[in-house]
């Protein structure tokens, strides 16, 4: 019974009227035209097992290439015997965040602050070395690990700065408001690629001679500033959605500006702007790819660089499909999460 009804539902959906039916046929032909060669290439004619290019059948995808290169796609040129450090840093971050999320309500804020102070330096120490660990220059970092590193550390700059400038833009003090508006509109108005160039060229120039600043750090700082401006706009949305009465009531209770902001306004405003901030974080992950222009090789950069390997000529499609799929999975998961947050708030 259910089967018939669902079948008739589909018939109604696809062939309800002659015009609908015609459109369906055209679309199905179109899908088949694109999907059949794609599936043949990616699955049916593809080679999954082997070790060199010679093992791959012509005409199909050569996933052997991805298997051979998997380590590089994940870690870049990070020394193979030291890759456990990256894994530990990653696990530490995941455990830290999980601990904060699962902690009881009253401990959450304190634990969060502790993690914020402990985790970032721990990550840098694990990745770059020193204090008993072998030094590994940022030149050797790369792949997915670098994509995540840049995204996380740039947002560590961007989120606090963004909150400050969002508050500044809402401030009663005219000069502070003006400075915030100029900061936000400037960084939002210029292309990110230009900012990465700018950071890598100007930062060494405006610091006292002799202070070298790491190439990767320059890119992270540059990205952090641009994303701060976008974060500021996301936070502003939350601040504007909050009824004025909240701050007025806090002030009436005798809280000063920072107490009213920190205890009453921000906790509520940030909850409202969390979906928008997540969307900015997704944009940050996508824009991390631009470090390619200053020869830092993140996931997409490594995929691009691997095309130059003379042993694996013509692997363009395999490299792009694999790296694109990873970006898509990460960003899609985050955007779904952001959407569910938004829905929960609306209810």
């Amino acid at each position, binding site marked *: 019974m259910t089967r018939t009804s669902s079948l008739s539902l589909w018939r109604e959906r696809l062939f309800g009227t002659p015009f609908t039916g015609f459109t369906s046929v055209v*679309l199905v032909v179109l899908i088949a035209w694109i999907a059949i060669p794609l599936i043949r290439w990616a699955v049916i004619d593809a080679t999954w097992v082997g070790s060199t290019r010679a093992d791959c059948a012509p005409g199909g995808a050569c996933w052997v290439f991805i298997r051979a290169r998997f380590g590089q796609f994940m870690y870049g040129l990070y020394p193979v015997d030291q890759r456990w450090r990256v894994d530990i840093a990653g696990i530490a971050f995941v455990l830290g965040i999980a601990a904060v999320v699962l902690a009881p309500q009253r401990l959450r804020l304190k634990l969060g602050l502790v993690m914020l102070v402990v985790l970032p330096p721990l990550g840098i120490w694990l990745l770059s070395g020193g204090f008993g660990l072998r030094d590994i220059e940022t030149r050797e970092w790369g792949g997915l690990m670098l994509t995540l590193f840049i995204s996380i550390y740039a947002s560590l700059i961007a989120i606090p700065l963004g909150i400050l400038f969002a508050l500044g833009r809402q401030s009663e003090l005219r000069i502070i408001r003006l400075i915030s508006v100029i900061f936000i509109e400037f960084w939002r108005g210029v292309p990110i690629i230009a900012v990465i160039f700018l950071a890598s060229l*100007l930062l060494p120039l405006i610091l006292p001679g002799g202070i070298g600043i790491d190439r990767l750090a320059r890119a992270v700082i540059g990205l952090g500033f641009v994303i701060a401006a976008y974060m500021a706009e996301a936070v502003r949305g939350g601040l504007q959605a909050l009824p004025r009465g909240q701050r007025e009531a806090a002030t009436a209770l005798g809280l000063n500006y920072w107490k009213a902001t920190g205890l009453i306004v921000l906790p509520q405003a940030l909850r409202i702007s969390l979906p928008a901030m997540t969307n900015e974080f997704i944009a940050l992950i996508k824009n991390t790819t631009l470090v390619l222009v200053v020869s830092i090789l993140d996931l*997409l950069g490594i995929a691009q660089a691997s095309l130059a390997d003379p042993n694996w000529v013509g692997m*363009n499609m395999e490299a792009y499909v694999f790296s694109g799929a990873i970006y*898509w999975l990460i960003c899609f998961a985050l955007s779904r999460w952001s959407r569910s947050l938004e829905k929960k708030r609306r209810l």
Partner: protein
Amino acid sequence: MSSFLSFINDKRVRDWFYQIALILLLVGLAVFFVRNASENMVKAGIASGFDFLWRTSGIEVPFVLTNYTQADNILALFWVGVANTMLVTVIAIVLATLLGFALGIARLSSHWLLSTIAGAYVEFVRNIPLLFFVLFWYFGVIAALPQPRQSIGLFGVAFLNNRGITIPLPDAPGNFRWAALAVLVSWLCYWLASAWARRRKERTGQDAPLLAIGIGLIVVVPALAIAWASLATRWDIPVLRGFNYRGGFVVIPEFVALLAALVTYTAGFIAEIVRGGIESVAKGQSEAASALGLRPGRILSLVVIPQALRVMTPPLTNQYLNVLKNSSFGAAIAYPDVVSLFMGSALNNTGQAIEIIAMTLAVYLVIGLAVSALMNWYNARIALVTR
């Protein structure tokens, strides 16, 4: 003493104190940075100032819209970059808007398969970096096109191969200048006619045959003008000589790849804006229009879209400015836009980092401010008038 206490506890005094302290801090930082920069530049032997703009550039550009040659000065190179940025931006905006509107409307279609495909496309495109598309189109698609000898011919006058698209070029552009003038004049006439028709309708209540006038002046007259210009001009049609095409104008693969990437990527975002805008129009509006006997197409064009446009304009403007900024992604495949020509090549040759960066950023900021001003004016014009 108490007057001093009341002075420092005065809110206005404190506010000014904080603001002045902030300004002093910023000025101090700026002085610190500028002093370091000038010291570092003296050490590197770079003179600051804009004199370098009049030096000979010596940089060859593969894709030039002006009559620039490498014997020209660096300022001319700057304008070449700006022109190339604008060219790809404008074409990408037009194409992405068309594709985006089509996708957005398809997503709302009652046809299940159509809306699912449009939705899948949007979800696919929005969650992948734009740089991915740029590299994919450039190294994945265009590099895989056949050699010039096996070009894909488009109607026998344009040829698509892995060195770009070779298109025919008119020998003398004179006729096209006249055609462009005719197009502008006929559009101006339409604008005047519609203003006149509106005033007449307000005065007498009579409709003018504006649709016929509009089709005539907006479509038919320009089409005739362009057709005349194309037929009256001798065309330089590309011909295969040896290993490549001679004659015509070569649209470089970098341009094609960047344009394709910008259009496919931005269309996904525009589709979401269109969908949001149309969904924001209350359902009662289209139901009421339907009750009045309007056909679905007219409901969309007369009732829904005019109201949706009001919601869509601000995010659409943002998206257009994003296209402008994102056109700089061409630097990754060496499309000669302002970032890669000026901030890349010219900066490498001259070392004038601060001046060149300031000029490049100014291009984007000036265009951005101009577009925002224009859109604010337009927004104010179409805003709901509440009395």
